[in-house]
């Protein structure tokens, strides 16, 4: 099992319930806006604590309310690619990429530059990048942090249509080349049909 998620959570008067077990490959969390998809990613990453439940990835328990387990965010080794990139504005691309550098990264620094085609951006400030460039740097930063699994939160939504194809191709290659559990949030049927090995509908 890659992702085992059983959570109950309440944000204001909006309840989130999810019972899901997923196999290998890319698992899509699919549903309309406001269904709590991002909240679920945040709970897997450890940014948000569920009221109740259990979360495990690749057999390792990250959170279990009944057993009192709650691994801190920094030690969960989630490669989180946020919807809006969230590059650190006060660091150049190079420093952003190296921020979480970890020996267990699936690809070396040079391989990541090559894989994502971002070698020419190293000395740029994030504010000067296009949406597609910023998203590729964000993916590179997540990969270099030595993640055990990837969380992708609508990585295409802030891009114009021309750039979407570019990132879609990158994600397809990541699926193929890195045998790593991936949880992909989207509300777009086309993306999900194209990328997902398994779909969890909310």
């Amino acid at each position, binding site marked *: 099992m890659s992702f085992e998620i059983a959570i109950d959570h309440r944000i204001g008067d909006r309840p989130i319930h999810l019972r899901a077990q997923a196999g290998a490959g890319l698992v899509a969390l699919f549903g309309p806006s406001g269904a709590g998809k991002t909240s679920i990613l945040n709970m897997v990453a*450890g*940014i948000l604590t569920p009221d109740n439940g259990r979360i495990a990835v690749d057999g390792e328990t990250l959170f279990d309310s009944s057993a009192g387990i709650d691994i801190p965010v*920094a030690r969960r080794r989630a490669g*989180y690619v946020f919807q809006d990139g969230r590059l*650190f504005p*006060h660091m150049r691309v190079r420093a952003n990429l190296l921020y979480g550098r970890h020996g267990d990264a699936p690809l070396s620094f040079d391989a990541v530059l090559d894989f994502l085609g971002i070698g020419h951006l190293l000395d740029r400030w994030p504010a000067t990048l296009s949406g597609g460039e910023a998203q590729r740097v964000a993916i590179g930063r*997540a990969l270099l942090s*030595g993640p055990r699994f990837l969380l992708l939160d609508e990585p295409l939504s802030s891009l114009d249509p021309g750039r979407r194809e570019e990132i879609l191709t990158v994600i397809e290659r990541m699926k193929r080349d890195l045998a790593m559990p991936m949880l992909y949030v989207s509300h777009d049927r086309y993306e999900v049909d194209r990328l997902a090995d398994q779909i969890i509908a909310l």
Partner: protein
Amino acid sequence: MILSPEEWGIVTLSLRVSLVAVGLMLPVAFAFAWLLARWRFPGKLLVDALVHLPLVVPPVVTGWLLLVLFGANGPLGRLFEQAFGLSFMFRWTGAALASAIMAMPLMVRAMRLSIEGIDRRLEQAAQTLGAGRWRVFLTISLPLSLPGIVAGLVLGFARSIGEFGATITFVSDVPGETRTLPIAIYSALQLPGAEAAVTRLAVISILLSLGALVTSEALARRASGGRTNHVL
């Protein structure tokens, strides 16, 4: 512009008092700013009010409170005397303390605004990349609040250079110890025929404050890698 040795002494004393005041207040003000920006606790409103007190209370009253607390017979005055052999009365250290207290609200406000402006989601992103609390603080929160820290330093320095009421109430007007620029200007105005001296000291005051402002703008521009170009 030619200054007499005595006037140079006034300028260097003012600089020393202001730099020590702002330097000592920096970590204290940042801690208050962080506390008020990031934490919820019972009595927060009271802490907020106490921090802002020197901004709203007449400076003479602040000076009197300092006298009560840090005077030779005040509880804190005795504590510092016994613990560190440090006395504030009629000394430049007292002038620095008064300046620091008067500068505190402005410094805290500038830093707090800047801390509140930090995108918390960047800190979360750093955590997901494996950074613990301290690393997140040192590499993300602190650099991103730098414009506010610089603004706080400039405002605090300018406030210190201009400090008059609390200082003269607390440590009086002692030449060479507590006679800072504003107090020297005020004293000179009491004497006939000192117009030239007053003009020189006033011009120095203006230049110091403008200098602080220009320096801070340059620092902020450099620290931000050219992304923002103003501090205040």
